[in-house]
């Protein structure tokens, strides 16, 4: 390798590098604005009154109209919808984590012939679009009187969260050394106790990742909820939002408030757990 390097070449190279870096940053910042400005616009507009919105839609609000929010919250039934979404998502999250991690434990750590085959069976679920099962599921659930109830939403949501939960949790359980379980058995521990006291605490990160993913995807799910739910009292947030679509609504600013209400919870969750969410979704997607 050439040890003596001409100083001017190094200098030139450095300058070139600086320019390239500057250009990269400029591009990234412009792109970031394209991502953030629409969201900011919604936030600002949601605090305006309608007359000002029509004359100057891109200006700052003169006085803040928090009434838009209270209107959307009560008259737009978004309050009920938010509560419903919370109930559905939290229940789904808990149930799918318990059921999914139990199955994952059986697949990863219990010893039986068909564990690989069973894993494949669950993985099929990741390839199937929800649209395909929508109609038969709807017919089935109406005959069981489960449509228009939150339970009727939670059951399919749990099921659709299972494949990814099982996939990720199997990975986590497999990484726990067998010696730990052997020690537990020698101490006279039964398998369910072993699961609760040895396996679960070791897989905390896995729970974090799967929990966040299931929360985010169920919070945003529209199609199934729209088909299953028609009563106002049990609608979830995305469903309640759809009735704002179309030109028949004249109170634009309240719709903007509705949008803010719908995205704020996920934005907060995202700000706190961004790295875990990203990691989990990537891990899940890779399998998909």
């Amino acid at each position, binding site marked *: 390798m050439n040890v003596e390097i001409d100083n001017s070449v190094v200098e030139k190279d450095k300058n070139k590098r600086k320019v390239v870096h500057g250009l990269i*940053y400029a*591009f*990234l910042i412009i792109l*970031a604005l*394209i*991502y953030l400005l629409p*969201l900011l*616009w*919604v936030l600002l*507009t949601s605090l305006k009154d309608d007359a000002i919105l*029509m004359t100057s839609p891109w200006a700052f609000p003169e006085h803040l109209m928090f009434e838009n929010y209270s209107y959307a919250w009560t008259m737009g039934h978004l309050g009920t919808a938010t509560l419903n979404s919370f109930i559905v998502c939290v229940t789904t999250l808990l149930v799918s984590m318990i*059921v*999914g991690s*139990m*199955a994952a434990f*059986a697949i990863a750590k219990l010893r*039986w012939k068909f564990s690989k085959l069973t894993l494949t069976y669950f993985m099929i679920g990741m*390839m199937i*679009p929800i*649209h*395909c*099962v*929508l*109609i*038969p*599921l709807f*017919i089935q659930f109406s005959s069981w009187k489960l449509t228009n109830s939150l339970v009727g939403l939670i059951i*399919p949501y*749990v*099921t659709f969260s299972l494949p990814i939960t*099982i996939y990720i949790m199997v990975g986590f359980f497999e990484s726990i050394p067998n010696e730990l*379980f*052997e020690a537990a058995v*020698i101490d006279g521990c*039964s398998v*369910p106790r072993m*699961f609760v006291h040895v396996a679960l605490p070791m897989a905390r990160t896995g729970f974090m990742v799967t929990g966040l993913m299931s929360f985010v995807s169920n919070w945003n799910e*529209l*199609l199934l909820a729209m*088909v299953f739910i028609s009563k106002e009292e049990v609608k979830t*947030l*995305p469903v309640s*939002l*759809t009735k704002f*679509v179309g030109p028949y609504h004249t109170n*634009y600013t309240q719709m*903007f408030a*509705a*949008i803010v209400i*719908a*995205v704020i919870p*996920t934005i907060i969750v*995202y700000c706190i757990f961004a790295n875990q*969410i*990203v990691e989990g*979704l*990537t891990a899940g*997607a*890779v399998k*998909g």
Partner: protein
Amino acid sequence: MDKLLRKKSNIILFLAPAFILFTVVLFFPICKAFYYSLCNYKTNYPIEFAGVDNYVKLFTKDETMKTALKNSIFFMIFSCVTQLLFGLVLAALLTNIKKGRNLFKNIYYLPCVLSSAALGLLWMFVFTPTLGINKMMESLGIIENYADGPQWLFNTDGFIILPIIVISFVALWQYVGQSMMLYMAQISGISSDIYEAAAIDGCTSTQAFFQITLPLIKPMVATAMSLNAIGSLKFFDLVYNMIPEGFLGNRAHVLATHLYDQAFKFNKLGYGCAIGVVLLIMCLIVTFLINKFVKVESYE
């Protein structure tokens, strides 16, 4: 030890809940969907077996299905190509900077976790002439009056109508973060030794990108592409929320909205199932093709 872990009762106890749920809520309905798709089945009418009637009707008589297929396939090709390009460019740029990498990454990924229903509404407003882009163009003096600007969501001219193109850009905006993330994960897994060795041999960073990075992330290209393809075939929320019902007639339908309309507006459940089956088969074919042609044996 071994005996305890082999005990049948334990296995059944741990597996049963997931297995039963999965079978009842996913596996049986899939089988039923295939069966219903072969039946003449309308709400409140008895089921009649009709053979392949639904499929024949779907592909020969149904004009809306043609539009839906056309639009869905357009979405698919558009998203595969653009997401591949932009996702790669973003991933390459972000891995090359140090300051603020996480911040930018998290910003670009943000829309992926937000509700498409809400974002659809947001962009509908942006493209509404009286409010959004047209008004902005008016105040900047690009057009004289907001009504003269393009009718982003209402123009029905052309083979692929403007609203569909607009929606596909919105989808790109929303989901490109995911492709970026996948590529970044793969790039960060490449050992830096390879780059150092290449640099010693006089390889520039552009060359390194094309000669080292691209070939090494090819398996991920297949994964990301099939995700995009399936995602865009399943497209529903954005289309449903950005185009008010009945505004463009049938011209803005995609497979999912067509399925929804047929099954739950016109109560043709069997017919809807046939669309669902077509959708499923398309997803499987596309995944198969992409994995066959893009995926190569991994290098490491």
